[in-house]
């Protein structure tokens, strides 16, 4: 993977929430760069992976500090709302977990797609663009889906429509937060194949947030392992099984294995030292 010109550079990102009981420091000194590749962020709930992604889109309600948060050479810290609108939903887009909640239930799929397309395409071409995108995500009958209401689509179709909507502006960076965990296994793989093609053909960067280690190791190029707001380890996805950190190894060990079911699954013994600041 060539890292000649990164799309995204994050250096020492910190996110804090002020709560009545004190400051909750949920993302601590996270640094990474992203090229035209598939980067996974894995970790358990509460590890800070989704907040990291939201900070990149300027959507976290917490307080964001960073030494550097640059998208295509442009500083993302302190952008005005108008400047954000030029980036968010156009050049950086996000696919959420469940299409049941992320699609507007009272607007037809086609109208939602055209609304997204209107950010970058002239009005006369909106419908053509929308149909073309539905074709790009391998929807067989794009005209029917264009007219359909969200409740008329299955989970897999809904998520494909969602991905179409996020790609219609031809973004340079797509953030996918557990985009396939609500889908059936075979549909999940088909949706991932579509994302894989799009990353390759459109020269796009993808941040893929997941808790599924097996999926990530076979789908992505690189993996960041997060725990308690920090990146504990960065690995080549292919070499995930050679992970060094006891946390990553623990997670791998407690995942049930189809071929060799254990009598008793190993459980994760959490070490307080994993909370200490990481030097990477």
């Amino acid at each position: 993977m060539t890292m000649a010109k990164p799309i995204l550079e994050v250096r020492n990102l910190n996110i804090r929430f002020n709560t009545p009981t004190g400051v909750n420091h949920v993302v601590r000194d996270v640094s990474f760069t992203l090229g035209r590749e598939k980067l996974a962020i894995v970790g358990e709930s509460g590890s800070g992976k989704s907040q990291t992604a939201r900070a990149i889109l300027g959507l976290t309600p917490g307080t964001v500090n960073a030494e550097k948060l640059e998208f295509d050479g442009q500083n993302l810290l302190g952008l005005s709302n108008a400047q954000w609108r030029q980036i968010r939903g156009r050049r950086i887009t996000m696919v959420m977990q469940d299409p049941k909640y992320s699609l507007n239930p009272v607007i037809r799929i086609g109208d939602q797609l055209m609304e997204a397309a209107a950010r970058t395409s002239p009005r006369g071409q909106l419908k053509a663009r929308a149909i073309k995108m539905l074709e790009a995500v391998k929807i067989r009958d794009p005209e029917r889906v264009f007219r359909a209401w969200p409740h008329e689509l299955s989970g897999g179709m809904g998520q494909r429509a969602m991905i179409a909507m996020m790609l219609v502006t031809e973004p340079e960076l797509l953030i996918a937060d557990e985009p396939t965990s609500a889908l059936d296994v075979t549909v999940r793989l088909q949706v991932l194949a579509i994302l894989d093609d799009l990353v390759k053909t459109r020269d796009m960067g993808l941040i893929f947030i997941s808790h599924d280690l097996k999926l990530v190791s076979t789908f992505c190029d690189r993996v960041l392992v997060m725990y308690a707001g920090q990146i504990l380890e960065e690995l080549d996805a292919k070499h995930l099984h050679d992970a060094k950190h006891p946390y990553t190894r623990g997670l791998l060990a407690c995942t049930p294995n189809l071929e060799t079911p254990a009598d008793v699954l190993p459980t994760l013994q959490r070490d307080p030292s994993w909370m200490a600041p990481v030097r990477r």
Partner: protein
Amino acid sequence: MVEVKDLDVTFDTGKHRVRALAGVSFSIAAGESFGLVGESGSGKTTVLRVLAGLVREWNGAITVAGKPLRSDRDKDAKRAIQMVFQDPYGSLHPKHTVDRILAEPLQIHGIGDIENRVKETLEQVQLGPTFRFRYPHQLSGGQRQRVAIARALILRPKLLLLDEPTSALDVSIQAEVLNLLAKLRRDLDLTYILVSHDLAVVAQLCHRLAIMRTGDIVETADAQKLAKGELTHPYSRQLLTASKGFDRAAIAAFADL
């Protein structure tokens, strides 16, 4: 323990008719753990809901522990079959303490000795007595699912219906809950029916499994066959391939869904 023969369920809304189960038959021995695997809409949850009494209109014959199951059941029959739901965030009453959640089934069934039963059951699911007076929002996802399991166990059922009991949990917590379920089955002589879309979870917990598709069982196999990958039906083989992770060649070969 469980004998299901030609189970047929049709949902009729007047406008649409959906045949959710089209003649499903299987049998489960006492103490066995049986997996039902399939994708959304395959009917696996409907099987559980019929057994739990949540779907009342069905045709076919079901016997549980030697007694035929009818649509109207007495309390004894209801007590013998208990269910654990998928999402512990949705299945526990947010304004009831753990104590009240666990005591309610006992009160409904007119069982005294609530104090001891609640304590004993919390111990079985490996939650200390300190959890007794907490509210669900004060518990983690894994702890909540333990409370949901305790609520099912407190009536001392024979058959436990598990509807994706770990799919809302992190893998580290999933391992703990799966271990707990395996231990409870051995200690309390329970019979399980586990619904899951994750073949690895089924391989971990079940002795046998049935693979369902569009309201029908396409294949039944035992755990050894599953572990060795010796499933024969094309649809089962496709699920098996899909569970191995992302593989472009395999995905291209998937039959239309």
